[in-house]
Structures are given as structure tokens and as C-alpha cells.
């Protein structure tokens, strides 16, 4: 596991090489919404705030010159911008607050279509109007001077159902995502006018690195699905940044689909780190046994669970759900998925490292009897079944539970074990295996065609705030006909209301308490079988001194160095 406090010192120079299996989702920082993309973006871009490697609660001011100033009862957020930060060539000029405003605005345009802007920044006045083409900019973002940017939020009654105050916390949290990294409008607008925007392959940087480009700004260092080359940004000044930027260049090689080749390449090679390439299980066990420093694990800030459709008979009966959870052998599931190293067995829904985790019971859980035994407890299950009206302690009804899982690999094993565990309780089941994309977009994300059980779902935080975990997934107000992520379709009034309150709580300690309470409430509803809080497994060559960014739970390119 990654140390609580890492040694951030390092030697300057050298080229770091990184192996990826896949590509960035979007090379455009305004659209990026994925761990690998973030890894690059946080090294090349300076959002208003960002996460220093060991920081887990409060983001560090980056482009911003200090913590945000909240006024007007939470309706106004003012951020000052640091002086002396310039764009990389070919733009070169100093960054102003207008560049941040434009960056956020373009995220709402259909040509960029940022994936989280609407969810977290949609509460800024005028954001929706821009999004649906009723305005040309976001009226709620103002730039009184070149170093100041002000965010004005909508009145509470304009917010999603249940939110009773200003959604300040969500906005501030999202300002630490790459979307708030400045984009020079005069340069970017012609690219953004295209559908979709081509700014991504012409982007300019503010961070210590930039994607290698030519005089016109074409990112020649990016070959989609093949490679990505980062070089030093000549306009970056170390004095303005907390980043160290030890290595001179970062060479990313994509398409390393086979971990049993890529992992040995990293472990036996020089200057290499893995991006989304982890060790295959046999190798992982060896590394763990040796306590090899070449493997560094970090909590992902995510949870995997098996969603039970609470609208589907008999899963609409709370006691039946509790019985299912009680009977389920989560230990077995984890073993099949790679054992202890993949993460701790989940006992509730807020993952470790996120405020509220400890208050909700930490690793031990909230104390409910139906999640007490990780290996499952048939007697507890039987008792709930009896309460549900099945005196034999097993399900004797005629309903067939459809399970739609992901085919291939561990996901398929998870789906199969789910089926097997349900049958253990007397359920009749029907297992359908499809691709992961299909499982989400055609089945589990669409309430109309949602099966009884979605065994291969999970959620990853957007930032270190429990609302980014619990609201999209368990708030009944968020059940939508398409792209739904409340897979259990849990809709409990008290939970929805508690979330509305917690979302506007600006004191982080009391927010943590509130979210923990909500976590307990959700757990009591047994809407899903939480089974693992994932770790990421990060590997490096012997001569690499890797530093983990805990927020992104992967290597921090701005701090990793070569020995």
C-alpha cells in the first residue's frame, strides 16, 4: 500500500516511459474524464485547483492563488488567479481569468460535451442556457479583472429536487478537475467551432509538460491509440507551481493489451511505469510475497457492487434483499477476482480515503447483520427469508431473476458466482452475458430494460467527496430513463432528502458525518451487494522512483523521477 506520506524528492532528468493498454478517452482536457487522461492532464494543465500527491481532503491551489472565497451564503465563489503563468507555445501569453471562464464554457458546448460539467457545474447561473444553445456564454461566471473569476450559483429552487441550499461544494470540488484549466479563446475558438472540437490535437499547456507539438500547435506527439509524447513546457516556471517535474520527457506507449508481457517489461526494464497495466495474478502474488517496492497499491476511491433492482419482484421486498446480501459469499468473489490484493471487502458504500468512510464504520462496516460475515451466513439469510414470508428460509416463488453481466475474464466469473449464490437461496435465474458497454448502455443504464440483477457495476469518485459516490448511484431523484446510474433504482424519500442537505454542507467534517449517516441508511436498504473497494496496482521499473497521486490513485507524472 502507498505510504501515508511519500518521499517527494527526486533526481532531475531522464525520459520516463509508460505503458498503457488503452488510450486517453479524450485528449482534450475539457472532455477528459478518465484516470489515464487525468494523469496526463494534471501534468500538462493547471486547473484552478489540483491534488498534490498525498492530499486526500482538500485540493491544492494550482492556477488559483489561494482557497476559494465563498460569500453570499454560498451563492458566490470567488477565485483569485496566480500571476506569471503563461501558455505553452505557440500561444505563449499570460493566463487570465477569462481563459478559465472560456474553458468552463466550452465544456458545456455540444462540440466538447464534457461528461461531468453538467452534473457539478450545471448549478452555475446560465450554464444550462449555454448547454442547450440559449446563450453564448455563462452569465454566472464573471471576470471582474484578469486575476479574478467569480462563480454565481443558482437559487436553491432552481437546483435538482431535494437540494435545499447552494451546491457550493460540488462546484468547488469540480474546480479541481481538468475542465477548469485555462484555454485561450482567441486561439481555441476556431477549433471549438468544429463538431467535434479539434482543440484537443492543438491544445496548449500550462503545466510543466506539454504534448509535443509543432510551430502551429499541432500535437504531433499524440498518435491516437498508439503513443503520446510529453515534453517540457518551455513557458512553465517552477516558482509558480508546487509540482516538481523531475523527468525531462514522458513517452507513453499504448496498446499493451497483454499484462503478462507488459508487466514483465516494466518490472525487468528501465525507466518504465505502468499506466493501466497491472501485473497478472501470478506475478502479483510474487510481488506481494517479496514485498517488492516495484509494486505500489493505492485505494482507487471506487467500489464494486452487485446491484439488485429494487423495483423487481421479489427484490422489491427489503427482507429478500437482506437475505440475498446475507447469503452472499463475498470472500469467494474476491478470491476469484484476484484475492486480497485487489482490495478490501466492502461493507458499505463510501470507499476508503473519502471523508465519511471512517464515520460509516470504516472497514468493519455499519454493523448490519446481513453484511457481517464476508463469507456469507445462511442462517441470517434464512431468518430474513422467513420474515419475507418464505418459511423454508429459501425463496420458493416462481419469479426468475435475470442477470445481465459482462462476458469474459473476471467480470464473467463475478456474474457466474452471482448466479450461483442466488441459486443457493432458491432463486431461479437466467444469466445473460454481453460486452461491458452493452451491459451498461443497453441494459443496466436503461430502467425500461433493466434486469433484476446487474452484477458487474461499480462507481468511482469524481473527487474526494462522498456526494460524487452516493448521489448518482442511490438518489431516487436521479433515476432517469437513459444513462441512469442508480442501478438499484433505490428511491427512498428520507435518503434523497438527507443527500440534498449534505450536498450543501460546506464544513467538510460535518459533511463527512452526514454522508456517513446516509451511507448507513443506504446500506440498511440493502440495494446492492458491496463486495470490494478496489485498489489500483501500480508497477514501476527498479530504477524508477514512482510517486502515487492518491486522488487519481495512479502515478503522479509531475513527481515521479528516475533514480
Amino acid at each position: 500500500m502507498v505510504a501515508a506520506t511519500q518521499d517527494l524528492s527526486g533526481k532531475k532528468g531522464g525520459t520516463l516511459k509508460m505503458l498503457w493498454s488503452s488510450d486517453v478517452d479524450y485528449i482534450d482536457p475539457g472532455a477528459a474524464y478518465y484516470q489515464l487522461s487525468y494523469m496526463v492532464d494534471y501534468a500538462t494543465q493547471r486547473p484552478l485547483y489540483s491534488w498534490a500527491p498525498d492530499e486526500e481532503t482538500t485540493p491544492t491551489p494550482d492556477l488559483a492563488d489561494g482557497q476559494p472565497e465563498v460569500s453570499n451564503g454560498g451563492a458566490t465563489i470567488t477565485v483569485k488567479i496566480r500571476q506569471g503563468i503563461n501558455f505553452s507555445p505557440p500561444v505563449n501569453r499570460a493566463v487570465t481569468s477569462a481563459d478559465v471562464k472560456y474553458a468552463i464554457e466550452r465544456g458545456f458546448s455540444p462540440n466538447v460535451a464534457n461528461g461531468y460539467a453538467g452534473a457539478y457545474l450545471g448549478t452555475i447561473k446560465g450554464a444550462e442556457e449555454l448547454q442547450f444553445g440559449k446563450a453564448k456564454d455563462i452569465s454566472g461566471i464573471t471576470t471582474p479583472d484578469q486575476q479574478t473569476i467569480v462563480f454565481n450559483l443558482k437559487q436553491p429552487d432552481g437546483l435538482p429536487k431535494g437540494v435545499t441550499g447552494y451546491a457550493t461544494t460540488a462546484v468547488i470540488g469540480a474546480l479541481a478537475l481538468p475542465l477548469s484549466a485555462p484555454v485561450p479563446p482567441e486561439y481555441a475558438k476556431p477549433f471549438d467551432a468544429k463538431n467535434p472540437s479539434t482543440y484537443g490535437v492543438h491544445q496548449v499547456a500550462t503545466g510543466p509538460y506539454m504534448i509535443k507539438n509543432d510551430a502551429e500547435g499541432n500535437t504531433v506527439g499524440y498518435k491516437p491509440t498508439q503513443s503520446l509524447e510529453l515534453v517540457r513546457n518551455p513557458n512553465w516556471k517552477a516558482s509558480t507551481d508546487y509540482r516538481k517535474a523531475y523527468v525531462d520527457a514522458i513517452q507513453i506507449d499504448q496498446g499493451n493489451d497483454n499484462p503478462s508481457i507488459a508487466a514483465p517489461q516494466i518490472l525487468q526494464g528501465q525507466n518504465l511505469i505502468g499506466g493501466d497495466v497491472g501485473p497478472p495474478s501470478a506475478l502479483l502474488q510474487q510481488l506481494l510475497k517479496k514485498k517488492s517496492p516495484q509494486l505500489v497499491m493505492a485505494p482507487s476511491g471506487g467500489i464494486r457492487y452487485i446491484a439488485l433492482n429494487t423495483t423487481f419482484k421479489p427484490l422489491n421486498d427489503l427482507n429478500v434483499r437482506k437475505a440475498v446480501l446475507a447469503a452472499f459469499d463475498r470472500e469467494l468473489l474476491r478470491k476469484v477476482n484476484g484475492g486480497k490484493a485487489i482490495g478490501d471487502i466492502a461493507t458499505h458504500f463510501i470507499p476508503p480515503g473519502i471523508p465519511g468512510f471512517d464515520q460509516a464504520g470504516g472497514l468493519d462496516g455499519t454493523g448490519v447483520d446481513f453484511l457481517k460475515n464476508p463469507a456469507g451466513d445462511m442462517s441470517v439469510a434464512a431468518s430474513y427469508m422467513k420474515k419475507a414470508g418464505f418459511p423454508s428460509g429459501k425463496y420458493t416463488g416462481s419469479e426468475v431473476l435475470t442477470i445481465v453481466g459482462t462476458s469474459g475474464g473476471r467480470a464473467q466469473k463475478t456474474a457466474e458466482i452471482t448466479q450461483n449464490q442466488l441459486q443457493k437461496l432458491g432463486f431461479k435465474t437466467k444469466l445473460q452475458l454481453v460486452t461491458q458497454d452493452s451491459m451498461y448502455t443497453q441494459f443496466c443504464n436503461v430502467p425500461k430494460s433493466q434486469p433484476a440483477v446487474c452484477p458487474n457495476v461499480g462507481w468511482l469518485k469524481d473527487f474526494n467527496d462522498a456526494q460524487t459516490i452516493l448521489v448518482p448511484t442511490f438518489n431516487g431523484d436521479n433515476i432517469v430513463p437513459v444513462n441512469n446510474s442508480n442501478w438499484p433504482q433505490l428511491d427512498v424519500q428520507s435518503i434523497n432528502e438527507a443527500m440534498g442537505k449534505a450536498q450543501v454542507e460546506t464544513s467538510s467534517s460535518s459533511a463527512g458525518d452526514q454522508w456517513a449517516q446516509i451511507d448507513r441508511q443506504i446500506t440498511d436498504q440493502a440495494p446492492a451487494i458491496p463486495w470490494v473497494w478496489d485498489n489500483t496496482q501500480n508497477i514501476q521499473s527498479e530504477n524508477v522512483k514512482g510517486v502515487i497521486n492518491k486522488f487519481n490513485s495512479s502515478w503522479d507524472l509531475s513527481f515521479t523521477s528516475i533514480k
Partner: protein
Amino acid sequence: MGRYVARRLLWVGLLLFLVSLLTFVIFYVLPSADPAQLRAGRRASPEQVEAIRQRMGLDDPMLVQFWNYLKGIFAHGDFGYSYVNEQPVRELILARIPATISVAIGASILWLFFGVLVGVISAVRRRTKLDRAAMGAALLGISAPEYWVGLVALYLFADDIGLIPLFGSAGSYVPLSQDPLAWFNSLILPWSVLAISFAAFYSRLLRGNLIEVMGEDYIRTARAKGLGEKRVVMRHGMRAALTPIVTVFGMDLGLMLGGAVLIEVVFNIPGIGRQAYDAILRADLPMIQGTVLISAFFIIVANLVVDIVYAFLDPRVRYD
């Protein structure tokens, strides 16, 4: 001959049209996922998803979409836009063609050379220990799964993780234009692995052909003329025995130019095969269309070339 080629070329066009229509229809009848949701991201509202669906043109009727697609290809050489990769399909495919061609051409030279060499030796030294050993090995070569052989080759000879580090490893592919020597070194293993199964197949095929041909009357005539045995085998025997090989070779080369997925995966070579595979996994219709079309194009053209070449090889065949 000219008319024949013209007619065949028309067929090529029609076939490509049908292939793309079929891909389109399959994608619509059996959608593998919803591209709009995938593009929108997990936090997008249904309105945003709808907006993206519109922007991607996915809400148009299928025929309109197909028409737009064809129009793009014929009017602008535009194969559409991959929303998954955020790049025009044409650029993406063009970027990968050199690697695919490198793999295909290099491997085919190797397998032709060794396939023919072993095939001839085996046929000439028929029933000797050498022949039996070669044919036994060939049987192994044919049945050994490429993917597995590739892995073994890497663990044995890759310059980073191999026991005897000799050749470039997975992910070491370097474009020819960048560094010919590194290009060559990085492709030795993939070429060899691909060539093994093909060479094995070709050697068995050629051996069979040549043995059969060597029993033909015209071979006896050649010998009776007083030609040396070498000339009899290499000129009279091979001329006839190689002709069917040319057909098979054309097909194989066409297939190979459409991408060699497994080899590309094992050796992490940025070729078309994996691109197609990824596109299918990610429901990237424009990309699927593009890669399917390019593969179909190579295969169909290879067929055409084979047929034309065949007319030159076998004077008895005439297309009128």
C-alpha cells in the same frame, strides 16, 4: 482481358457497397451498445445524451445515415468520424496502414521463402528422414496457436523479457520511415511467428503439389529430353506446382493486409486488425465501417489480382 478486368472492378465496387451495407445493417439490427451514452459519459443527463445522439447523426433513419456515409466516402473520401477516438476514421486507418503492410509483406516474404524451400526439399527428398521431420514440424507449426507461439517467442527472444534477448519486444514497433534498422529488428519476431504457421501450411501444400506434378507425363518428357534433374524440378515441376500456391498466397496476403489481430495484440503492433477489434468492442460504428471496408477492399482486390495473375500463369485460362 481488359473488359474482364473492368467488369471485375465493377464487382469490387458493388461488393464493397454490399459489405458496408451489411455492416450497417448488422450494427442496427444487433446493436452492441449505445454510442451516444458512451460518448456522453456516465454523468450526462438524458437531455445531454439526446443532444449527443443528434450531433452524431444517430437519430436519423438508418437509410439516411447510410446515404450520408456513402456520400462522405465518394464525395470527399471521408470515412466518417470516430467519436470514440475523437479523430476522423480515415486518418486513424491511414496511421495504421504502414504497420499492417510492414507485418504482412515481411511475414509473407518469410513464409513464401521457407514454405517453398521446405516444400521443395521435402518433395524431392520424399520419404526420407528429412522429409518426415520437416512435415512433422510443419504439422506442429500449423496446429500451434499463433497467439501462444507469439508469447513463447517473446519469453524466449524478446530483448527485454526474453531468456535469450535478441530481437525487439512487444511494443517496440518503430515506423520504417523513422529508423529502418529498428523497424526491422522490431518485426523479426512477429514476422517469424506469423510465418511459421503459414510456411508450414505452404510447405505441405507445395510438397503435395510438387509430388503430384513430378508424376505427370510432362515431367517424364522433360527428363527424356535430357534435362538435368535440377532443371526438371525447378523449372518444369515448380512452374506447375507453384501455380495453385499463387492463388492461396494472394488470398492470404489480402487477409493479412486486412490486419493480423492476434499478432498485433501479442506484439503490440499498431495495425489495422486490432483497430477493427477495438472498434467492435467499443461499438464505434464509423471505425468498424472503415476497418471492415479496408479489409474487404484488400481481400477483394487480392482476389482480383490473383485471378488476373492466374491468367498469366496458366495459359489455358482465358477470361473473355
